[in-house]
């Protein structure tokens, strides 16, 4: 650089739009290439999601693209070498496909469930799920089970939608925003954009979190809380809001089942169910309008939504036949009666006065700052409204609530609190994103038993579904699980995202059965994506008596040399996100906005490195070779040339007009949402900056659970099958049905005896607070502290230990401890210490922090790496000073009356209880190594990886050094 300012020569540059994948947000990015090298990645200013901004991860994509940790060749474990020793030989893709084809064809023709496919990311599920279903295996899931399935399930089973991809806070109009249990920056740019506007508009932002970092840092008020106790706080808030009459009565009456009457005749087989007038004409996955209110005008029971009826929300009533009844809201009121602020204070550590004030702030803001938009709309009962109104109190929550074994019920409490305030799909409150709301529960179902798994046939149902009753469980005649992870069994009936965290342990133990081949895509199951890491690594290496590995064949597809790839028998080198076609589909986790559906594509910006092949192409090729029906012509011939061809031409059913992409459908691209395949669809996406955004008419943008216009639009576009209202489940009959089964009140399926009490306890139709399972089963005197983790913003939802720029920001991690807590144990700021749980212990370094509740310790997650992994030197900070808290977290609960090997998860959903772990801390002895523990033998670089690297570099794109 000299005094003469030089500008870029834009003529020599190429600019392409694609979609980021440095984390799971999937922002639009604009990539500038100079001589074929990535010069600059910026936010796409036209993209609805990120509106031109970009985060630290997105800005560091160049260092991911050119990382020396990249795998470049298919690799086979050298014959005779031990798994995990990292002895690989490069093979061709043909050899790799032959190996897989042979093995998988054999499995498929005998017992398809012996093949399991688990993926780290949720966002390719439309294709990975299709492949698994077509293969015929039930053993498929993505990482939702150990991420935030409680958040999805707890809210979808209550309001038909959830946070993040499914919906979120309308901060544009909110006046009060309460963020509870949101680790660091979930979700990234859209929340940052919204939060900043919200604050600048004078909104009040309250953060409830054991730790004050990230978004909580800019909150107007931080309310520290003990981990796992949010349910108690939410119950107390509900208590206070009901006590003060601060709930939105009209909203509850019209749009929830709060006023519906519950049968309380203990002798009845309908005990705990809503009383119904008659059997509905059509059975479908919707709530029939056949329940009763007690009308105050006629003082009689009437069918809900009877014109001019005005139901009681509270009270006790009797049918003529003497059946005692109470409105659901009365039951809720009784439920929270004892959940006083004082009671919650003793559990949460939040002062009772603060709880009361918080409840008043919510209730008064919701009531007194009501928004009225001049938008006319019609509800599903045909009533026309001149305006759309809203109560401007918005919430956001994520893993802090979800990653506890009481998370489902806690999140139900939250959804109910939001409903009490009248904030569901209304301006200033919570807003859905297409294709949400879904019916409660959504319609997708798994097969009901082992007969759904048939040789050489697709699975008879979905691998993952939404049970509405015990009959929907995926169990055999003895009530035993059909899935390897025991999802949809009595152990975890509503495990709607599966339990990936138990797959390896279950397969190793052969409980419920052994498998042959495990295919892992983009998930680090030998490190940070597993609990009880040390043992799980041993299980991956463990052999049967005959010398065969207990999990005989392990295929790992990843772009990087991770701890997991080291254990593979076959490694498939994936491309980077800049090297592939990809879709962010509405069939998948969408990127829709509040105002309408959005989907997007990735297009290759640079050619694949080495022999890298996108995993999508691998699946299409494998599907074709295995002659899976969706991928082949009736005569067995290849149906799709490649992934781009598949995306354009695949339809969910022949002629359905529903494909992966919703924009520019129809022969000439003239249709949206539904239409024939358009051969120029990719081109049209590229021309539009890589995304499609359909803005709904304004009258369809709100109240979508009950908005006739919207629901009919959704029905016409086959987003839903029914245009019936989606009433909020203040009281959950779904849960009651499971409870009734456990109580032996039903004739249908019943839980095995050892699980009866568990089901009866936790499947409570009204939310309740209970101590997390680990706390119930461990010595909380001995392990007085909660330990939690979060990814730092600069690495949130990303894989970035190998990123030369980001790892300078987070090279290793400390355990953050409140100074009082640390000093009480004699641990110095910066000193070495041990953190121990009932499962194991790690040595790490301490950092004092005043921004953490004294009963909690926490660290940045997944900064610690195994030596030599991720292309890092064996002495890199990540392995020498970095540590992983996972070593302390069990994937199974200690043996207790409900079973010896129950997953350490929410008993309802199977959500991994990461944040339940209890620990104690003490200083390391003088003379102990100044190194984290445990340590593992350094990984060797794999063939095809950059073997030698300079100890410095001066990255400058466009000179030809990085092609």
């Amino acid at each position, binding site marked *: 650089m000299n005094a003469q300012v030089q500008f870029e020569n834009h003529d020599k540059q190429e600019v392409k739009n694609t979609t980021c994948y440095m984390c799971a947000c999937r922002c639009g990015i604009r990539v500038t290439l100079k001589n074929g090298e990535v010069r600059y990645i910026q936010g796409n200013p036209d993209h609805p999601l990120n509106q031109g901004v970009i985060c630290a991860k997105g800005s560091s994509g160049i260092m991911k693209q050119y990382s020396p940790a990249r795998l470049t060749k298919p690799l086979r474990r050298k014959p005779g070498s031990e798994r995990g020793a990292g002895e690989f030989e490069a093979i061709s893709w043909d050899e790799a496909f032959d190996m897989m084809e042979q093995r998988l064809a054999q499995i498929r023709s005998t017992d398809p469930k012996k093949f399991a496919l688990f993926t780290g990311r949720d966002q390719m599920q439309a294709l990975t799920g299709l492949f698994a279903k077509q293969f015929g295996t039930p053993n498929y899931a993505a990482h939702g089970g150990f991420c935030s399935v409680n958040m999805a399930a707890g809210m979808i089973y209550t309001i038909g939608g959830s946070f993040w991809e499914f919906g979120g806070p309308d901060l544009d109009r909110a006046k009060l925003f309460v963020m509870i249990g949101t680790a660091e920056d979930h979700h990234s740019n859209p929340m940052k954009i919204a939060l900043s506007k919200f604050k600048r508009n004078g909104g009040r932002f309250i953060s409830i979190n054991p730790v004050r970092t990230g978004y909580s840092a800019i909150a107007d008020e931080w309310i520290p809380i003990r981990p796992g106790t949010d349910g108690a706080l939410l119950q107390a808030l509900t208590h206070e809001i009901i006590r003060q009459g601060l709930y939105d009565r009209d909203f509850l009456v019209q749009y929830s089942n709060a006023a519906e009457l519950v049968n309380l005749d203990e002798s009845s087989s309908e005990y705990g169910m809503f009383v119904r007038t008659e059997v509905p004409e059509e059975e479908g996955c919707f709530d029939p309008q056949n329940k009763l209110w007690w009308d105050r005008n006629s003082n009689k029971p009437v069918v809900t939504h009877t014109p001019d009826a005005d139901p009681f929300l509270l009270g006790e009533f009797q049918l003529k036949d003497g059946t005692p009844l109470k409105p659901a809201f009365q039951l809720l009121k009784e439920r929270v009666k004892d959940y006083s602020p004082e009671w919650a204070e003793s559990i949460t550590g939040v002062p009772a006065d603060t709880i009361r004030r918080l409840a008043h702030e919510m209730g008064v803001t919701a009531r007194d700052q009501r928004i009225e938009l001049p938008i006319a709309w019609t509800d599903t009962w045909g009533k026309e409204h001149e305006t759309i109104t809203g109560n401007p109190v918005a919430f956001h929550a994520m893993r802090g609530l979800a990653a506890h074994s009481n998370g489902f019920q806690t999140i139900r409490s939250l959804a109910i609190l939001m409903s009490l305030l009248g904030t569901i799909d209304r301006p200033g409150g919570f807003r859905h994103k297409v294709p949400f709301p879904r019916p409660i529960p959504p319609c997708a179902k798994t097969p009901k038993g082992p007969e759904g798994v048939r040789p050489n046939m697709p699975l008879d149902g979905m691998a993952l579904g939404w049970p509405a009753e015990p009959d929907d469980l995926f169990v055999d005649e003895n009530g035993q699980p059909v899935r390897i992870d025991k999802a949809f069994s009595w152990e975890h009936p509503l495990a709607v995202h599966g339990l990936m965290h138990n797959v390896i342990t279950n397969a190793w133990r052969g409980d419920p059965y052994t498998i042959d081949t495990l295919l892992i895509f983009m998930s680090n199951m030998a490190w940070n994506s597993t609990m009880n890491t040390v043992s799980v690594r041993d299980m991956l290496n463990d052999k049967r008596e005959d010398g065969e590995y207990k999990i005989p064949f392990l295929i790992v597809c990843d772009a990087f040399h991770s701890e997991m790839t080291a254990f593979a028998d076959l490694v498939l080198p994936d491309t980077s996100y800049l090297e592939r076609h990809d879709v962010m589909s509405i069939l998948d986790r969408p990127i829709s906005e509040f105002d309408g559906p959005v989907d997007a594509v990735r297009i290759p910006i640079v050619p694949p490195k080495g022999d890298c092949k996108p995993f999508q192409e691998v699946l299409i090729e494998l599907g074709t070779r295995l002659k899976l029906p969706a991928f082949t012509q009736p005569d067995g011939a290849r149906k799709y040339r490649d992934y781009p061809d598949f995306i354009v031409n695949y339809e969910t059913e022949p002629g359905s007009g529903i494909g992966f992409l919703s924009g520019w459908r129809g022969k000439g691209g003239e249709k949206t949402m539904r239409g024939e395949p358009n051969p120029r669809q990719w081109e049209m996406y590229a021309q539009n900056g890589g995304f499609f955004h359909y803005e709904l008419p304004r009258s369809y943008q709100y109240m979508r659970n009950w908005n006739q216009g919207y629901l009919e639009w959704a029905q016409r576009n086959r987003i839903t099958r029914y245009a019936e209202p989606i009433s909020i489940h203040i009281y959950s009959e779904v849960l009651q049905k499971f409870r009734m089964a456990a109580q032996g009140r039903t004739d249908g399926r019943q839980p095995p005896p050892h699980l009866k009490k568990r089901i009866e306890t936790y499947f409570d139709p009204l939310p309740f607070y209970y101590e997390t399972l680990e706390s119930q089963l461990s010595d909380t005197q001995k392990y007085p502290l909660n330990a939690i983790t979060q990814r730092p913003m600069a690495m949130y939802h990303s894989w970035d230990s190998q990123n030369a720029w980001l790892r*300078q*920001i*987070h*090279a290793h991690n400390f355990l*953050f401890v409140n100074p009082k807590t640390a000093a009480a144990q004699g641990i110095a700021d910066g000193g070495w210490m041990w953190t121990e749980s009932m499962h194991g212990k790690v040595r790490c370094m301490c*950092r004092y*922090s005043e*921004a953490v509740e004294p009963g909690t310790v926490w660290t940045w997650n997944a900064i610690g790496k195994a030596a030599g992994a991720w292309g890092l030197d064996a002495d890199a900070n990540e392995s020498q000073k970095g540590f992983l808290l996972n070593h302390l977290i069990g994937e199974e609960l200690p043996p207790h009356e409900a079973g010896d090997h129950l997953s350490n998860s929410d008993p309802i959903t199977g959500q991994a209880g990461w944040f339940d772990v209890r620990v104690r801390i003490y200083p390391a002895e003088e003379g102990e190594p100044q190194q984290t523990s445990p340590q593992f033998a350094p990984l060797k670089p794999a063939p095809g990886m950059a073997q030698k690297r300079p100890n410095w570099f001066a990255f400058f794109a466009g000179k030809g050094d990085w092609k």
Partner: protein
Amino acid sequence: MHPAFSVIFLTTLIGVGQGLFLALYTGQVYALFQVLSAQGDHRFYAVGSVIVLAFLAAGLVASFFHLGRPERAWRAASQWRTSWLSREVIVLPLFMASVFMYGMAHYFGWNAPLFSLGETLQIDLIMLTGAIATFFCFALFICTGMIYACLRFLQEWHTPLTVSNFILLGGASGFALATAYAAYAAPELTGFYGKWTLIITLLAFASRLASLVRNHKLKPKSTLQSAIGVRHTKIAQKAQGFMGGSFNTREFFHGKSPSMLRSVKWIFIVLTFALPLVFLAWSLSINSASMLVLTFAVQYAGLIAERWFFFAQANHPQNLYYQAIS
């Protein structure tokens, strides 16, 4: 600050050179005014000038190790209007040239009077070049001292004492070297240089002590509060934004413990002042030339410690921003 040995050697070596030249010339001036009868021969001064130049050159060489781009060092002369460093870069070669001329004048015995001042003072080329060199010598001391003294955020340096320390410490070490040199080459001058060495060392001690006392009492003007603009009595950095270090963590902090810093302080006080004073008095009394060499060597070693401490003690306000990783 992080003490860089290039700069430690630069400043101490040229200080010795400057002091030695001043010793040589002082003796001559005394003789001119006939206050001092003894005077070495031309050879003594010529060789002395060579020694002066050798120290200056060594300092110059050391300075190049401090530069990232030494090949561009010539550019450093351009900003003499504003930069004390630039001025030093100009004055150092001028001083060296004038010392060279002074040495040449001695070597060739250019002592024909050029003019006279008043009745009696006959000024020859030797005295003239010496006077010019003396001017540049002090200019150089001032430039070197001001490089540090002008940095107002480095409060430990931002005092006239920095300049006086450079002059007096350079002077003391140069006179000590002159004493030792004279003991071999012009024994009749040993006592003269020796006494001056005692005096200057004592003055330097006083000046340095004054700066130590001053620095001990200093209150940093900048605080975390002013650094980030938040008014609260309790502020702690948790993350400086990177973990593997940066230029800002390497250049501005010595990285040693406070006890090490204290030890170095006492070491330099003993080596630079206490021991040389004792050794000098003793060696003058027993007339030991080798002891005088030892005296200089000890004092120079002390000066290295002193200069290390000088840098290490300076607390740069930027360090407020670089205190913690996590």
